[in-house]
Protein backbone atom coordinates (compact mmCIF):
# COMPACT_ATOMS: atom_id res chain seq x y z
CA UNK A 1 0.00 0.00 0.00
CA UNK A 2 1.21 3.48 -0.84
CA UNK A 3 0.59 6.35 1.58
CA UNK A 4 -0.23 9.80 0.23
CA UNK A 5 3.22 11.17 1.06
CA UNK A 6 5.07 8.04 -0.03
CA UNK A 7 5.92 6.76 3.45
CA UNK A 8 5.94 3.12 4.53
CA UNK A 9 3.24 2.17 7.08
CA UNK A 10 5.70 2.29 10.01
CA UNK A 11 7.46 5.53 8.99
CA UNK A 12 7.02 8.74 10.94
CA UNK A 13 7.05 12.17 9.35
CA UNK A 14 10.31 14.18 9.60
CA UNK A 15 10.78 15.42 13.14
CA UNK A 16 12.62 18.25 14.85
CA UNK A 17 12.95 19.08 18.55
CA UNK A 18 14.44 22.04 20.36
CA UNK A 19 14.67 22.83 24.07
CA UNK A 20 14.71 26.26 25.70
CA UNK A 21 12.71 28.33 23.22
CA UNK A 22 10.80 30.58 25.65
CA UNK A 23 12.98 32.86 27.73
CA UNK A 24 10.56 33.67 30.54
CA UNK A 25 9.40 30.11 31.16
CA UNK A 26 11.10 27.83 33.70
CA UNK A 27 11.36 25.24 30.95
CA UNK A 28 10.25 25.16 27.33
CA UNK A 29 10.45 23.08 24.18
CA UNK A 30 9.40 22.97 20.54
CA UNK A 31 8.46 19.81 18.70
CA UNK A 32 7.72 19.51 14.99
CA UNK A 33 6.45 16.39 13.26
CA UNK A 34 5.66 16.87 9.59
CA UNK A 35 3.63 20.04 9.37
CA UNK A 36 2.48 19.97 12.99
CA UNK A 37 4.37 22.32 15.32
CA UNK A 38 3.82 22.46 19.07
CA UNK A 39 5.48 24.86 21.51
CA UNK A 40 5.31 24.09 25.20
CA UNK A 41 6.19 26.27 28.18
CA UNK A 42 6.31 25.15 31.81
CA UNK A 43 6.04 27.61 34.69
CA UNK A 44 6.67 26.62 38.27
CA UNK A 45 6.32 24.75 40.53
CA UNK A 46 4.94 27.97 41.98
CA UNK A 47 2.31 29.26 44.35
CA UNK A 48 -1.04 27.67 43.50
CA UNK A 49 -3.82 29.93 42.31
CA UNK A 50 -6.72 29.70 43.03
CA UNK A 51 -5.63 28.94 46.56
CA UNK A 52 -8.60 26.72 47.39
CA UNK A 53 -7.51 24.15 44.79
CA UNK A 54 -4.09 23.58 46.35
CA UNK A 55 -3.28 20.14 47.68
CA UNK A 56 -1.26 19.75 50.92
CA UNK A 57 0.14 16.44 49.69
CA UNK A 58 1.16 17.08 46.10
CA UNK A 59 1.43 19.75 43.47
CA UNK A 60 -1.46 20.39 41.12
CA UNK A 61 -0.80 20.25 37.39
CA UNK A 62 -2.69 22.65 35.17
CA UNK A 63 -2.53 22.34 31.42
CA UNK A 64 -3.65 24.77 28.74
CA UNK A 65 -3.81 23.58 25.16
CA UNK A 66 -4.34 26.29 22.58
CA UNK A 67 -4.58 26.06 18.82
CA UNK A 68 -3.78 29.37 17.16
CA UNK A 69 -6.29 30.83 14.75
CA UNK A 70 -3.81 30.67 11.86
CA UNK A 71 -2.76 27.07 12.54
CA UNK A 72 -5.37 25.51 10.24
CA UNK A 73 -6.35 26.30 6.59
CA UNK A 74 -9.70 27.72 7.66
CA UNK A 75 -9.35 30.40 10.38
CA UNK A 76 -10.16 28.95 13.79
CA UNK A 77 -12.02 31.12 16.24
CA UNK A 78 -9.38 32.09 18.85
CA UNK A 79 -9.64 31.18 22.50
CA UNK A 80 -10.62 28.05 24.35
CA UNK A 81 -13.44 25.97 22.94
CA UNK A 82 -14.94 22.60 23.82
CA UNK A 83 -12.28 20.68 21.93
CA UNK A 84 -9.28 22.47 23.42
CA UNK A 85 -10.64 22.23 26.97
CA UNK A 86 -11.00 18.48 26.56
CA UNK A 87 -7.55 18.16 25.03
CA UNK A 88 -6.04 20.12 27.93
CA UNK A 89 -7.48 17.48 30.25
CA UNK A 90 -6.26 14.63 28.04
CA UNK A 91 -2.72 16.03 27.93
CA UNK A 92 -2.66 16.57 31.69
CA UNK A 93 -3.82 13.00 32.32
CA UNK A 94 -1.16 11.67 29.95
CA UNK A 95 1.66 13.55 31.71
CA UNK A 96 0.59 13.21 35.32
CA UNK A 97 1.67 9.56 35.84
CA UNK A 98 5.25 10.51 34.93
CA UNK A 99 5.59 13.55 37.22
CA UNK A 100 6.58 13.07 40.86
CA UNK A 101 4.06 15.56 42.19
CA UNK A 102 4.67 14.68 45.83
CA UNK A 103 8.02 16.51 45.81
CA UNK A 104 6.35 19.92 45.80
CA UNK A 105 3.34 19.98 48.11
CA UNK A 106 0.99 22.99 47.98
CA UNK A 107 2.27 24.15 44.63
CA UNK A 108 0.98 24.37 41.09
CA UNK A 109 2.73 23.50 37.83
CA UNK A 110 1.42 25.32 34.76
CA UNK A 111 1.90 23.80 31.32
CA UNK A 112 1.02 25.90 28.29
CA UNK A 113 1.03 24.25 24.88
CA UNK A 114 0.47 26.28 21.73
CA UNK A 115 -0.10 24.70 18.35
CA UNK A 116 1.15 27.13 15.75
CA UNK A 117 0.66 24.81 12.81
CA UNK A 118 -1.72 21.85 12.71
CA UNK A 119 -1.67 18.86 10.42
CA UNK A 120 -3.16 16.04 12.54
CA UNK A 121 -1.60 14.56 15.65
CA UNK A 122 -1.59 17.83 17.60
CA UNK A 123 -2.32 16.24 20.97
CA UNK A 124 0.59 13.84 20.52
CA UNK A 125 2.96 16.63 19.50
CA UNK A 126 1.72 18.64 22.49
CA UNK A 127 2.46 15.80 24.93
CA UNK A 128 5.92 15.23 23.44
CA UNK A 129 6.80 18.93 23.64
CA UNK A 130 5.34 19.32 27.15
CA UNK A 131 7.31 16.38 28.53
CA UNK A 132 10.56 17.87 27.20
CA UNK A 133 9.64 21.24 28.69
CA UNK A 134 8.96 19.60 32.07
CA UNK A 135 12.37 17.93 32.03
CA UNK A 136 13.99 21.23 31.03
CA UNK A 137 12.28 22.95 33.96
CA UNK A 138 14.05 20.56 36.33
CA UNK A 139 10.83 18.97 37.48
CA UNK A 140 11.34 15.44 38.84
CA UNK A 141 9.80 12.80 36.59
CA UNK A 142 9.87 9.02 36.59
CA UNK A 143 10.28 8.97 32.85
CA UNK A 144 9.81 11.09 29.77
CA UNK A 145 6.51 10.75 27.93
CA UNK A 146 6.45 10.48 24.16
CA UNK A 147 3.39 10.32 22.03
CA UNK A 148 2.44 9.53 18.46
CA UNK A 149 -0.76 8.66 16.67
CA UNK A 150 -1.30 5.41 14.86
CA UNK A 151 -4.36 4.07 13.15
CA UNK A 152 -6.11 2.09 10.53
CA UNK A 153 -6.34 3.63 7.06
CA UNK A 154 -7.94 1.65 4.19
CA UNK A 155 -7.65 -1.53 6.27
CA UNK A 156 -3.90 -1.13 6.87
CA UNK A 157 -2.26 -0.31 10.19
CA UNK A 158 -0.11 2.84 9.90
CA UNK A 159 1.86 5.10 12.24
CA UNK A 160 1.68 8.88 12.46
CA UNK A 161 -1.28 9.85 10.31
CA UNK A 162 -1.38 13.20 8.57
CA UNK A 163 -4.51 15.22 7.88
CA UNK A 164 -5.03 13.72 4.44
CA UNK A 165 -5.07 10.18 5.82
CA UNK A 166 -7.18 11.16 8.78
CA UNK A 167 -9.89 12.46 6.46
CA UNK A 168 -10.16 9.20 4.48
CA UNK A 169 -13.51 7.41 4.97
CA UNK A 170 -13.59 4.89 7.85
CA UNK A 171 -10.17 5.85 9.22
CA UNK A 172 -9.49 5.05 12.84
CA UNK A 173 -7.12 7.35 14.70
CA UNK A 174 -5.41 6.05 17.85
CA UNK A 175 -3.25 8.55 19.77
CA UNK A 176 -0.79 6.82 22.13
CA UNK A 177 1.34 8.33 24.89
CA UNK A 178 4.02 6.02 26.20
CA UNK A 179 6.66 5.97 28.92
CA UNK A 180 9.54 4.20 27.17
CA UNK A 181 11.58 3.02 30.14
CA UNK A 182 8.68 1.89 32.27
CA UNK A 183 7.02 0.52 29.10
CA UNK A 184 3.67 1.90 30.19
CA UNK A 185 0.95 3.54 28.18
CA UNK A 186 -0.45 6.72 29.69
CA UNK A 187 -2.90 7.68 26.93
CA UNK A 188 -4.85 5.54 24.53
CA UNK A 189 -7.80 6.86 22.61
CA UNK A 190 -9.54 5.56 19.53
CA UNK A 191 -12.25 7.06 17.40
CA UNK A 192 -13.68 4.77 14.78
CA UNK A 193 -14.10 1.04 14.32
CA UNK A 194 -11.36 -1.51 13.80
CA UNK A 195 -10.80 -5.21 14.39
CA UNK A 196 -8.80 -6.52 17.33
CA UNK A 197 -6.13 -7.72 14.94
CA UNK A 198 -5.68 -4.30 13.31
CA UNK A 199 -5.65 -2.70 16.72
CA UNK A 200 -2.75 -4.87 17.85
CA UNK A 201 -0.82 -4.07 14.68
CA UNK A 202 -1.46 -0.36 15.03
CA UNK A 203 -0.45 -0.38 18.70
CA UNK A 204 2.83 -2.08 17.84
CA UNK A 205 3.61 0.55 15.19
CA UNK A 206 2.66 3.32 17.63
CA UNK A 207 4.98 2.06 20.33
CA UNK A 208 7.80 1.71 17.78
CA UNK A 209 7.19 5.32 16.78
CA UNK A 210 7.29 6.42 20.43
CA UNK A 211 10.71 4.79 20.84
CA UNK A 212 12.00 6.83 17.89
CA UNK A 213 10.61 10.03 19.35
CA UNK A 214 12.20 9.17 22.71
CA UNK A 215 15.66 9.11 21.13
CA UNK A 216 15.02 12.53 19.60
CA UNK A 217 13.79 13.94 22.92
CA UNK A 218 16.92 12.74 24.71
CA UNK A 219 19.13 14.22 22.00
CA UNK A 220 17.38 17.60 22.14
CA UNK A 221 17.62 17.81 25.93
CA UNK A 222 21.30 16.87 25.88
CA UNK A 223 22.05 19.44 23.20
CA UNK A 224 20.91 22.34 25.36
CA UNK A 225 22.95 21.31 28.37
CA UNK A 226 25.98 19.68 26.76
CA UNK A 227 27.97 22.88 26.94
CA UNK A 228 26.75 23.73 30.43
CA UNK A 229 28.32 20.48 31.60
CA UNK A 230 31.64 22.28 31.92
CA UNK A 231 30.09 24.74 34.34
CA UNK A 232 30.09 22.39 37.32
CA UNK A 233 33.31 20.71 36.27
CA UNK A 234 35.63 23.66 36.76
CA UNK A 235 33.86 24.71 39.93
CA UNK A 236 35.35 21.82 41.94
Amino acid at each position, binding site marked *: MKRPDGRKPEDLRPMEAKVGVIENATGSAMFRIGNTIAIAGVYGPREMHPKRLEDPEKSVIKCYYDMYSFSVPERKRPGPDRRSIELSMVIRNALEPAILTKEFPKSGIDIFVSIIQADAGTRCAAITAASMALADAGI*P*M*KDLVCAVACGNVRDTAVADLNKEEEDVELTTDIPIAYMPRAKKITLLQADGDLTAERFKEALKLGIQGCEQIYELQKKALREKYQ*VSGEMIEDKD
Partner: protein
Amino acid sequence: MGNLVVNEKNIVIPGEEIANGMDFLPSFGTYRDGESIIANRLGLVSVRNRVIKVIALNGVYMPQMEDLIIGIVKDVGFSGWTIDIGSVTYANLPVGEAVRDKVELLKSDISKFYEIGDIIITKVMNVTKSRIVQLSMRDHGLRKLQGGIIVKVVPQKIPRIIGKQGSMVGMIKEYTKCDISVGQNGFIWICGPADKMNITKRAIKLIEEKSHISGLTDKVKEFLESESK
Protein backbone atom coordinates in the same frame (compact mmCIF):
# COMPACT_ATOMS: atom_id res chain seq x y z
CA MET B 1 27.97 -6.95 41.34
CA GLY B 2 26.88 -3.51 40.28
CA ASN B 3 28.31 -1.21 37.69
CA LEU B 4 27.77 2.31 36.43
CA VAL B 5 25.97 2.64 33.11
CA VAL B 6 26.60 6.39 32.82
CA ASN B 7 29.91 8.04 33.67
CA GLU B 8 30.24 10.66 36.35
CA LYS B 9 29.46 14.26 35.34
CA ASN B 10 27.50 13.11 32.31
CA ILE B 11 24.08 14.57 31.64
CA VAL B 12 21.16 12.29 32.40
CA ILE B 13 17.55 12.60 31.29
CA PRO B 14 14.61 11.64 33.55
CA GLY B 15 14.07 7.90 33.26
CA GLU B 16 17.63 7.12 32.24
CA GLU B 17 19.42 4.27 33.99
CA ILE B 18 22.54 5.40 35.91
CA ALA B 19 23.67 2.17 37.53
CA ASN B 20 22.51 -1.36 38.11
CA GLY B 21 23.02 -3.75 40.96
CA MET B 22 22.47 -3.33 44.67
CA ASP B 23 26.00 -2.02 45.36
CA PHE B 24 24.97 1.57 44.76
CA LEU B 25 22.59 3.69 46.80
CA PRO B 26 20.12 6.16 45.33
CA SER B 27 20.22 9.71 46.70
CA PHE B 28 18.81 13.10 45.59
CA GLY B 29 17.39 13.10 42.06
CA THR B 30 17.32 9.33 41.68
CA TYR B 31 15.11 6.39 42.51
CA ARG B 32 15.48 2.63 42.56
CA ASP B 33 13.46 0.45 40.26
CA GLY B 34 14.16 -3.24 40.73
CA GLU B 35 17.91 -3.69 40.43
CA SER B 36 18.72 -0.41 38.73
CA ILE B 37 19.05 3.24 39.79
CA ILE B 38 17.16 5.67 37.59
CA ALA B 39 17.49 9.46 37.31
CA ASN B 40 14.29 11.34 38.05
CA ARG B 41 15.41 14.75 36.84
CA LEU B 42 17.66 16.33 34.27
CA GLY B 43 21.12 16.96 35.61
CA LEU B 44 24.70 15.84 36.10
CA VAL B 45 25.58 12.52 37.68
CA SER B 46 27.64 12.66 40.84
CA VAL B 47 29.07 9.56 42.53
CA ARG B 48 30.47 9.73 46.05
CA ASN B 49 31.60 6.28 47.18
CA ARG B 50 28.44 4.23 46.71
CA VAL B 51 25.95 7.09 46.79
CA ILE B 52 24.62 8.35 43.48
CA LYS B 53 22.91 11.69 43.09
CA VAL B 54 21.88 14.00 40.27
CA ILE B 55 22.83 17.68 40.41
CA ALA B 56 19.96 19.66 38.91
CA LEU B 57 20.78 22.21 36.19
CA ASN B 58 17.57 24.21 36.28
CA GLY B 59 14.56 24.64 38.48
CA VAL B 60 13.08 26.68 41.27
CA TYR B 61 14.85 27.43 44.55
CA MET B 62 14.45 24.78 47.22
CA PRO B 63 14.98 26.38 50.65
CA GLN B 64 17.52 24.85 53.00
CA MET B 65 18.24 25.74 56.60
CA GLU B 66 20.75 28.57 57.18
CA ASP B 67 20.54 29.85 53.60
CA LEU B 68 21.01 33.61 53.27
CA ILE B 69 18.37 34.81 50.88
CA ILE B 70 16.70 37.97 49.62
CA GLY B 71 12.93 38.25 49.80
CA ILE B 72 10.15 40.65 48.92
CA VAL B 73 7.36 41.35 51.42
CA LYS B 74 4.09 40.24 49.82
CA ASP B 75 1.67 40.62 52.69
CA VAL B 76 1.51 41.96 56.24
CA GLY B 77 -0.47 39.73 58.54
CA PHE B 78 -1.59 39.99 62.15
CA SER B 79 1.55 38.49 63.67
CA GLY B 80 4.01 38.26 60.81
CA TRP B 81 4.82 38.76 57.15
CA THR B 82 4.46 36.69 54.00
CA ILE B 83 7.66 36.80 51.95
CA ASP B 84 8.20 35.92 48.30
CA ILE B 85 11.50 34.04 48.15
CA GLY B 86 11.14 32.73 44.58
CA SER B 87 10.41 29.24 45.82
CA VAL B 88 7.48 26.89 45.44
CA THR B 89 5.46 28.60 48.16
CA TYR B 90 5.75 31.86 50.03
CA ALA B 91 7.73 31.93 53.28
CA ASN B 92 6.66 33.11 56.69
CA LEU B 93 8.43 35.65 58.90
CA PRO B 94 6.92 35.88 62.41
CA VAL B 95 7.15 39.10 64.45
CA GLY B 96 9.18 37.38 67.19
CA GLU B 97 11.94 36.54 64.72
CA ALA B 98 11.98 39.98 63.10
CA VAL B 99 11.80 42.52 65.92
CA ARG B 100 14.01 42.57 68.95
CA ASP B 101 11.63 44.33 71.33
CA LYS B 102 8.38 42.89 72.58
CA VAL B 103 5.51 43.97 70.36
CA GLU B 104 1.97 44.24 71.69
CA LEU B 105 0.15 42.83 68.71
CA LEU B 106 -3.30 44.06 69.71
CA LYS B 107 -2.21 47.65 70.10
CA SER B 108 0.28 48.14 67.31
CA ASP B 109 0.43 47.89 63.55
CA ILE B 110 3.41 45.77 62.51
CA SER B 111 3.57 47.34 59.06
CA LYS B 112 5.73 50.05 60.64
CA PHE B 113 8.57 47.50 60.60
CA TYR B 114 8.15 46.06 57.13
CA GLU B 115 5.68 47.21 54.49
CA ILE B 116 4.41 45.44 51.39
CA GLY B 117 7.06 45.69 48.67
CA ASP B 118 10.01 46.02 51.02
CA ILE B 119 13.13 44.05 50.15
CA ILE B 120 14.75 42.19 53.02
CA ILE B 121 17.87 40.12 53.41
CA THR B 122 16.99 37.21 55.62
CA LYS B 123 17.89 33.70 56.70
CA VAL B 124 15.99 30.41 56.45
CA MET B 125 15.40 29.32 60.02
CA ASN B 126 13.50 26.13 59.40
CA VAL B 127 11.85 24.11 56.64
CA THR B 128 9.18 21.73 57.88
CA LYS B 129 8.36 18.36 56.38
CA SER B 130 5.28 19.81 54.69
CA ARG B 131 7.51 22.54 53.19
CA ILE B 132 6.47 25.47 55.35
CA VAL B 133 9.42 27.88 55.30
CA GLN B 134 10.19 29.90 58.43
CA LEU B 135 12.47 32.92 58.11
CA SER B 136 14.45 34.79 60.73
CA MET B 137 16.11 38.20 60.98
CA ARG B 138 18.09 37.34 64.11
CA ASP B 139 21.65 37.47 62.88
CA HIS B 140 24.04 40.25 62.04
CA GLY B 141 23.72 41.73 58.59
CA LEU B 142 20.08 40.75 58.21
CA ARG B 143 18.08 43.89 57.51
CA LYS B 144 15.75 45.75 55.26
CA LEU B 145 17.36 46.93 52.02
CA GLN B 146 16.62 50.53 51.07
CA GLY B 147 16.09 51.40 47.41
CA GLY B 148 17.76 49.49 44.62
CA ILE B 149 16.44 46.88 42.23
CA ILE B 150 16.06 43.10 42.21
CA VAL B 151 17.43 40.92 39.42
CA LYS B 152 16.21 37.33 39.31
CA VAL B 153 18.44 34.54 38.01
CA VAL B 154 18.30 30.74 37.97
CA PRO B 155 19.39 29.69 41.49
CA GLN B 156 21.67 26.94 40.15
CA LYS B 157 23.85 29.65 38.56
CA ILE B 158 24.46 31.58 41.79
CA PRO B 159 27.89 29.92 42.40
CA ARG B 160 29.07 31.27 39.03
CA ILE B 161 27.83 34.78 39.77
CA ILE B 162 29.63 34.83 43.11
CA GLY B 163 32.78 33.27 41.63
CA LYS B 164 35.69 31.77 43.55
CA GLN B 165 35.77 33.48 46.95
CA GLY B 166 33.46 36.15 45.59
CA SER B 167 35.84 37.13 42.78
CA MET B 168 33.18 37.67 40.13
CA VAL B 169 30.82 39.76 42.23
CA GLY B 170 33.80 41.63 43.65
CA MET B 171 34.93 42.58 40.17
CA ILE B 172 31.50 43.91 39.22
CA LYS B 173 31.39 45.94 42.44
CA GLU B 174 34.81 47.39 41.68
CA TYR B 175 33.88 48.55 38.19
CA THR B 176 30.34 49.80 38.81
CA LYS B 177 30.68 50.99 42.44
CA CYS B 178 27.23 49.52 43.11
CA ASP B 179 26.15 47.70 46.26
CA ILE B 180 25.33 44.10 45.39
CA SER B 181 23.79 41.46 47.62
CA VAL B 182 23.42 37.95 46.23
CA GLY B 183 20.79 35.69 47.80
CA GLN B 184 21.05 31.92 47.55
CA ASN B 185 17.53 31.90 46.12
CA GLY B 186 18.54 33.61 42.89
CA PHE B 187 17.43 37.12 43.86
CA ILE B 188 20.17 39.70 43.49
CA TRP B 189 19.80 43.17 44.96
CA ILE B 190 21.64 46.06 43.30
CA CYS B 191 21.83 49.64 44.54
CA GLY B 192 23.60 52.62 43.00
CA PRO B 193 23.12 55.35 40.37
CA ALA B 194 20.56 54.40 37.70
CA ASP B 195 23.02 54.00 34.80
CA LYS B 196 25.45 51.97 36.90
CA MET B 197 22.62 49.70 38.07
CA ASN B 198 21.75 49.05 34.46
CA ILE B 199 25.33 47.99 33.64
CA THR B 200 25.40 45.72 36.69
CA LYS B 201 22.13 44.12 35.70
CA ARG B 202 23.40 43.45 32.19
CA ALA B 203 26.66 42.03 33.53
CA ILE B 204 24.73 39.61 35.74
CA LYS B 205 22.50 38.58 32.85
CA LEU B 206 25.64 38.01 30.77
CA ILE B 207 27.04 35.66 33.42
CA GLU B 208 23.76 33.78 33.63
CA GLU B 209 23.54 33.39 29.88
CA LYS B 210 27.15 32.41 29.26
CA SER B 211 27.83 30.59 32.52
CA HIS B 212 29.22 27.56 30.68
CA ILE B 213 31.91 29.41 28.71
CA SER B 214 35.48 29.01 29.90
CA GLY B 215 37.28 32.30 30.53
CA LEU B 216 34.04 33.87 31.68
CA THR B 217 35.84 36.25 34.03
CA ASP B 218 37.72 37.83 31.11
CA LYS B 219 34.51 38.15 29.10
CA VAL B 220 32.78 39.95 31.95
CA LYS B 221 35.82 42.16 32.51
CA GLU B 222 35.83 43.11 28.84
CA PHE B 223 32.12 43.93 29.01
CA LEU B 224 32.54 46.06 32.13
CA GLU B 225 35.52 47.92 30.69
CA SER B 226 33.71 48.77 27.46
CA GLU B 227 30.63 49.88 29.37
CA SER B 228 32.31 52.02 32.00
CA LYS B 229 34.07 54.31 29.51
